């Protein structure tokens, strides 16, 4: 075991950084436009809302309440009584593939691409 940073260490760090940057930079080149906000609770059948229609969705799961706000092509959790507040602190998301998670409530809010309909589709 070496006690100082070695060239192999730098190679590992550079490889990991390159992998992360590729994952960030490549998908938008092939992505559809964001179309739906998909909300699922504990991985169950999700509910989809078109991202272009402003609305507020209130949820209660696992004793935690959340208010999800879709506005101006972006989505955010604007209120929650969850103790860690991480979902609210994540802020607004608007790109395809982005997610907001609330682990205590088991809620995942993800933006998906595709052709958007005017009304929301349940199921």
């Amino acid at each position, binding site marked *: *075991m070496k006690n100082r940073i070695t060239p192999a260490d730098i190679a*590992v760090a550079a490889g990991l950084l390159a992998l*992360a940057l590729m994952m960030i930079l490549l998908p938008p080149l092939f992505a559809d436009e964001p179309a739906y906000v998909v909300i699922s609770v504990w991985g169950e059948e999700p509910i989809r809302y078109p991202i272009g229609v402003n609305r507020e969705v209130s949820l209660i799961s696992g004793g935690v309440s959340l208010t999800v706000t879709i506005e101006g092509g972006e989505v955010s959790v604007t209120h929650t009584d969850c103790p860690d507040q991480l979902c609210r602190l994540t802020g607004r998301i608007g790109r395809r593939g982005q997610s907001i*998670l609330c*682990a205590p409530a088991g809620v995942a809010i993800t933006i998906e691409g595709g052709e958007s309909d005017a009304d929301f589709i349940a199921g």
Partner: protein
Amino acid sequence: MPTLSRGKSAALLAARGGMLALSALLLSYLESFIPINLIIPLPGFKLGLANILVMLIFFTFSPLEALAVSACRIILSALLFGSPVSLFFSACGGALSLAGLLALKYTLVGKLSFFGISIVGAALHNTGQLIAASLLFGGGVFYYLPVMLIASLIFGGICGIILNIIYPKLGKVIKGGGHR
């Protein structure tokens, strides 16, 4: 070096394991006071101070002892400060991270310092947590993977540098103490 009877040796192992598990738990608790989430408001980001101790045990004593201490820390930490969900996340992350360390131990360990090993361990830990999250929340959570990998570079790198500094001295001290 004095030889120990099997009973004494087992007692020493149990006492040392208990102390190390408690130390790891204490580091986890202390870490909860560091407001990382105010800087990076995403779930799962931690400095990973307890992993410093787990890696120290892994390379000073044995992978099995590191597994035992890590498992104790994860279970106790979830019982005291977490939830069944956090237990599941930590267990998946810890298992994948230890599997990666085991693979490194028999391959690249002679070429890497703790800096590289810690980065790989952190990246695997975060990947394991995301695999656990994908089982609960669906595959959309992998959007976080690149951000998690960059966090692994930063936080794993910091832990690795700390280990590079303390291992030459502390490793010998705690190993010597175990054989007395």
